[in-house]
């Protein structure tokens, strides 16, 4: 049994969806809450105030070191950022109206490479290249975070949590139905 502290419980009228590592979700449902827990991973939250639609992604790594040998898949921000932006566009959002929140990118283990810092740097650069302003950011440090985002309102809440809340952060195996398949007409 997992006890959810009362201060993060969801009111009965709200529906909570967890954005797992390797996922992106977009919603215009005013009762929807997107939530995730981050260590070195990054969650990007986008919001279009006119369409009242928002979304969140959750990625493990920025981009592959060698795209010629590696599949650019759900583990990478370079893919999940595009999925999130396109999901927003599909809901009627415009890139020129989008606003971003950025969370995560902690360096939890002092002896390991600073993956969190690299992830946060990548996300900031991506948003800058796309012309999407960051309205709130809480990245870096050494502590895990929990993020709750109401996509239809553009409201985010980010709090520090104990490290043992973090799910196992490893590259995900590719699904059986491999993307990248080619269909010739």
């Amino acid at each position, binding site marked *: 049994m997992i006890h959810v502290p009362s201060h993060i419980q969801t009111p009965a009228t709200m529906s909570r969806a967890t954005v797992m590592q390797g996922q992106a979700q977009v919603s215009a449902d005013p009762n929807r809450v997107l939530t995730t827990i981050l260590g070195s991973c990054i969650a990007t939250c986008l919001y279009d105030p006119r369409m009242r639609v928002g979304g969140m992604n959750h990625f493990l790594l920025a981009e592959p070191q060698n*795209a*010629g040998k590696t*599949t650019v898949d*759900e583990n990478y921000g370079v893919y999940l950022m595009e999925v999130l932006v*396109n999901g927003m566009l599909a809901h009627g959002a415009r*890139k020129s109206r989008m606003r971003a929140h950025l969370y995560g990118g902690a360096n939890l283990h002092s002896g390991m490479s600073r993956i969190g810092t690299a992830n946060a740097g990548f996300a900031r650069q991506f948003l800058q290249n796309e012309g999407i302003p960051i309205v709130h950011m809480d990245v870096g440090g050494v502590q895990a975070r929990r993020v709750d985002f109401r996509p239809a309102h553009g409201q985010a809440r980010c709090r520090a949590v104990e490290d043992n809340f973090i799910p196992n952060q490893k590259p995900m195996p590719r699904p059986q139905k491999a993307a*990248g398949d*080619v269909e*010739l*007409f």
Partner: protein
Amino acid sequence: MRALLRHALTEQGFAVEQADDGVSALEWLEGNDVDVVITDINMPRLDGFGLIERLRAGGRHRDRPILVLTTESSDEKKARARSAGATGWIVKPFDAEKLSAAVRRVAH
């Protein structure tokens, strides 16, 4: 993503030219020949559907193979791309070897 795509294809021996959006691609293609066009769907100024339609409407690239590489996976958009004249449809995330094989197949 464009940088990764360039890297993946050049490693396989292809020469790659890239454009920021559909309008830039059209302008570049007016003065240059290519063996294959690879386009996304969501692009500023002129999207992938518009680019395909403009290329198919006439000129030097009317019969050029055009592959769509996109995160979109809906049947409706795939059908629209096919109707516009796309040669093939590839859903990201891309696999470098599959992509290269597809380019070789349609380019010969």
